[in-house]
């Protein structure tokens, strides 16, 4: 697998990263180097091996359906939640108009 200039430009656009043409040109060989390095894993025969989903043997824990059981991860924190917002008005986040 390898990427070209257009693919890198598209990935950058999807990730909302502003990358100049010169930077993209430099990135193409770098990314291809990384991809080639990772691709070496494809040389290992994994026939019959279950895909590994996590490095630690562990089960997903489920939470009971209780409101604000843990105050740290509960609601009712409007001021905290809005504290870093560039614009907060009437309890809302204000963002540049995004109407269709």
């Amino acid at each position: 697998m390898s990427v070209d200039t257009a693919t890198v430009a598209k990935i950058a656009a999807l990730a909302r990263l502003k990358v100049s043409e010169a930077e993209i040109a430099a990135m193409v060989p770098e990314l291809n180097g990384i991809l080639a390095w990772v691709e070496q894993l494809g040389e290992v025969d994994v026939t019959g091996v279950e895909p590994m989903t996590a490095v630690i043997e562990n089960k997903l824990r489920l939470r009971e359906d209780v409101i604000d059981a843990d105050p740290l991860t509960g609601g009712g924190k409007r001021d905290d939640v809005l504290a870093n917002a560039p614009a907060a008005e009437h309890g809302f986040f204000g963002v540049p108009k995004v109407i269709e």
Partner: protein
Amino acid sequence: MSEYRIKGETGDWEVVIGLEVHAQVVSKSKLFSGSATAFGAEPNSQVSLVDAAMPGMLPVLNKECIRQAVRTGMAINAPINKWSRFDRKNYFYADLPQGYQISQLYHPLVGEGEIEVSLDEKNPEAVKTIGIERIHVEQDAGKLMHDQHPTMSYVDLNRSGVALMEIVSKPDMRSPAEAGAYLRKLRTILRYVGSCDGNMEEGSMRADVNVSVRKPGAEFGTRTETKNVNSVRFVMAVVEQEARRQIDLIEDGGTVVQETRLYDPDRNETRSMRSKEDAHDYRYFPDPDLLPLELDEAFLAECRASLPELPDAKRARYEGPLGLSAYNANALTAEVETAMAFEELLASVAKASGKGEADVAKRVANWLLSERAGVLSANNVLASDPKNSLEANTALVVAAESGAISGSKAKEIFALYLTGDIDLAKEIEANQQTSDTGAIEAAIAKILADNADKVEQYKGGKEALFGFFVGQTMKAMQGKANPGVVNELLKKALG
């Protein structure tokens, strides 16, 4: 039901429809955080640091949301995947603070199922099975308001992180009516199961409508997806408008582009959402914050045991063992509340009258659907009025069932009871109709004597006069005579 075809310049077209329904899961707290889900709260008051995607916060899955989705899957006869996984769907939008939605692309919780929809209320044979591809669980986004400020959109994250079930149908629908019937039936099932309140006005159910057109029998055409349609009527309108637009486009030499569209109810048209041009490149990958979800047999057994009797089974039972008409069975099962009210009253009447449920079912059904409904609406009384109680309804239906009062008297007394201040038991007692044959015979004898001329005409063949004699007898008995007995005695007296 005849096939739905749209006339074009080049002949008839067929429309192909698939629906992706987002149903908000009934749960107290969100899918991955403990903040509340109640509708209508102050903006951003039900937002935790997890929902606002503050750095370092980790999702912890809500068991109840999984339970509800599993129960829903079981209700549509779908296999439940004991091993499923959450993926990140990456996109940027102001209502999505994480920059990705946690969803399930590769390993959904629920596999293929189906539901049977009725296409004609009056014809119980007109049914169609619509396939369901999958149900997966995902986070809802926040809400944007565009009309509050000249240059800004306002964001309320209360809905951000609330659990949704995405219920994906197969492209099995072929007309706006089928799409509407599917959505209504799905809503009914969800409300029976209790996994979604089905409140479309509050956005608890929203549909993405996939539409394509083709010449009958041809390959599927290119589809468009109209997002976030929030009523049955609008879904049907989208299908109609979008099919028409695609046909006109193709017949004018154009090509349908696979794209995301928006429905504008005010102008009844769909239009392209240009901002979503790249939107299908979501770069899904397994969410590294969450391990795979593994369910055990005990959990599934509990989910299965908690399922109520579902609408199709209920309707079959009402028509079969209870002997109701198809129409009444349908009317009683369409809304879960109606079915519950019917069963509650049925059990109560059967117990109070000492009869079997099947013996009183017809009368209870008629009372609920027609007589009581008529009295409530004629007197502007809500069904939720405390006077419209189980006790009062039971007393009236039992009295009518035993023949103590007539059906029309029951309605009269009910109206008086709802609007006035009367003692229901006394009023029923006072209006008891009599089957005392002696008293009725005496009344009949007097009426026949007073109307000798009409008796002659009747005997001469004018049988329509029978109704006159019944009326006169009932009047003489002040409406309290048992009509069956009156008929019988009159027939005998008139020879």
